[in-house]
């Protein structure tokens, strides 16, 4: 085995970096605190109860035991690459050996939090096509060792791939490290733009939830915020106050989404590797996510009014992972331009150049149905609110005006079409969203028909892929059957790997 620029011989068992112990201890405590913080809070509030002490001691005991086992685990944890397999030997009491054939390894991701960065180490996640049990992750490897490790696996994988004629790569790459082509780097200016144009409604929602939560907790602790507010003479419930609160929520959520975007996407680079994409980003926790082409199930991009003004899109790639059912690993890029998206499209689907000739729209009966439901729901709600709290009616009236417009726009914008290889879905209400999914990624298709749909000879189509599903609602029943036949025929005839 020739080795370039690395001095690691993975054929002999290696241990993780010694910092792994630190990481493990931090992890243990984070899990413990995450699980037990309500108990701790209770304990702090209510010190007198002796029962709490017993509980606390038990917890501390369990925590310490867990930590000791973790540390022992570190010293008994070895990994090596031998005979085309990644071999992990572990176990404190018994010895357990896990071997994973290299060709089963799908992606290798690096992650860094603050400790990792200070110590010059990375967390390495090895994703396989098997079940979640076979997931492997190393808490701490020195950066150069991690890179050598990844290169060695990729190289070995490529070598194996040569023997298999059906894989898409025909020749071995010249260098062990795949060449990366940068698609975009999020400069501070674009990061700012991404923050400004982020979805503030989502942040507002989170903020409101947070307020409600606080409100709830205060009530539990015996404070009554409503009574407190009542005692301040100026703050009367009024339309002005309502507007003020709305403005406040908006400003704060604006700041929150700015900060969230800035922290999450700080110094983001999105690049094209040999057979996939890599994203590196984050201020506090540096994250590297990679996706191989054949694992990517759908790509989609969307804008909102602000983003459209700047010509920017939020871009998402969903990929199948071995824990597909639970976790959907997605690559998310804020503030991408149309050219950058086109580049991704071209490199991901080089075989597809055409756009659908015709599109299907949703039937108007869906709109009627939705409007009827909204009217009914709001009438009931408003009737209820009329007797309880008059000021909440302001909020609901706004909603009452907004929802029908949203439904109408959704109805107008929805378009479904497909070519020989790809499915295109355009949707959105205020913003525009486009999703693309290769037909050979179809896992199963379901035609659904409610009594209302049957009356109007309509049906909905649900197309499942390994990272979720796409719905084609309220199309003519005959169209649904036709589309299903077409997609099934193409999916079954295709020999491209779907995962």
């Amino acid at each position, binding site marked *: 085995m020739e080795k370039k620029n690395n001095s690691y011989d993975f054929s002999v068992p290696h241990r993780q970096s010694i910092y792994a112990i630190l990481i493990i201890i931090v992890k243990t405590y984070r899990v413990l605190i995450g699980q037990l913080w309500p108990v701790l809070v209770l304990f702090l509030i209510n010190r007198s109860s002796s029962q709490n002490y017993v509980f606390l001691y038990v917890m501390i005991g369990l925590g310490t035991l867990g930590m000791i086992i973790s540390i022992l685990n570190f010293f008994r944890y070895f990994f090596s690459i031998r005979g085309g397999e990644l071999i992990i030997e572990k176990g404190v009491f018994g010895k357990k050996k896990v071997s994973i054939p290299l060709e089963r390894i799908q992606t290798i991701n690096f992650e860094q939090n603050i400790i990792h960065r200070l110590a010059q180490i990375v967390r390495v996640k090895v994703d396989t096509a098997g079940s979640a049990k076979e997931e492997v992750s190393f808490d701490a490897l020195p950066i150069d060792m991690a890179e050598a490790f990844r290169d060695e696996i990729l190289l070995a994988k490529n070598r194996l791939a040569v023997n298999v004629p059906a894989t898409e790569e025909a020749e071995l790459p010249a260098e062990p490290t795949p060449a990366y082509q940068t698609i975009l780097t999020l400069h501070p200016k674009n990061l700012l733009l991404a923050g400004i144009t982020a979805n503030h409604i989502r942040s507002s929602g989170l903020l409101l939830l947070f307020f409600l939560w606080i409100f709830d907790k205060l009530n539990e602790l015996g404070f009554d915020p409503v009574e407190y507010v009542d005692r301040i003479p100026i703050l009367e419930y009024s339309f002005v106050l309502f507007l003020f609160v709305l403005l406040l929520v908006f400003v704060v959520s604006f700041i929150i989404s700015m900060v969230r975007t800035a922290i999450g996407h700080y110094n983001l680079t999105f690049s094209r590797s040999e057979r996939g994409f890599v994203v590196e980003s984050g201020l506090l926790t540096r994250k590297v996510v990679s996706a191989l082409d054949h694992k990517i199930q759908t790509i989609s991009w969307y804008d909102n009014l602000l983003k459209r003004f700047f010509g920017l899109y939020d871009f998402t790639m969903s990929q199948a992972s071995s824990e597909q059912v639970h976790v959907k690993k997605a690559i998310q890029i804020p503030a991408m331009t149309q050219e950058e998206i086109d580049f991704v499209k071209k490199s991901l689907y080089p075989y597809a150049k055409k756009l659908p000739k015709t599109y299907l729209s949703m039937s108007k009966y869906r709109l009627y149905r939705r409007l009827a439901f909204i009217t009914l729901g709001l009438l009931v709600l408003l009737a209820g609110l009329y007797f309880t709290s008059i000021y909440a009616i302001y909020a609901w009236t706004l909603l009452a005006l907004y929802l029908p417009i949203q439904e109408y726009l959704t109805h107008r914008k929805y378009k479904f079409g497909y070519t020989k290889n790809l499915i295109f879905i355009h949707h959105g209400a205020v913003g525009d969203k486009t999703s693309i999914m290769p037909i050979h990624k179809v896992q199963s298709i379901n035609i659904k028909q409610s009594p209302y749909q049957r009356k109007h000879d309509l049906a909905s189509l649900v197309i499942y892929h390994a990272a979720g599903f796409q719905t084609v609602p309220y199309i003519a029943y005959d169209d649904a059957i036709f589309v299903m036949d077409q997609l*099934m025929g193409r999916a079954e005839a295709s020999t491209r790997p779907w995962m």
Partner: protein
Amino acid sequence: MEHIISDGFENPQVEIKSYPSIRQLDFQALHPRSVKAAYLSLLIGFMVLLLGYVIAYLLSADFRSFFWYVLLGHFVVFGLLFYFVQSRYLAKGYAIRARDISYRSGVFFKSLVVIPFSRVQHCEVDQGPIDRLFELSTLRIFTAGGASSDLSISGLEPEVANHIKDFIIRRTLDRHGEEE
């Protein structure tokens, strides 16, 4: 782009009309014994819930005031469920083609699922206590599309269920063989 085409990938143009249509599918009914099994499991559910209500009636004074409404609702709901057992049975059916399996169900809310064999992750045959009583089996088919896209066909004869399972597994293996 050329190397992708030359790499054993073939995607010949297919005439649109030439794809087989699910319209032509001849759906197989489930075994008639599954109707009896459905009645029995409904009856068990009916009795268990009824017992629960009676216990609640005896234990809680609050519940007593609206017990009769609950009881009425209970009878109406289960009456409807019993009434529609036959239609539900008639609505269900499966069909197997060379490359996929289809399953339809639902009296009011109709559903038709098609799963290609090449996408089947794994496949199993189960037998619950009621199934065993009536000598029936449930065939479960799992894909990578998640729980909502998985298929479960109950009320098959064990031999049929196992036969279909073996067939699907063979087809799945064939496909993987083709790919590698």
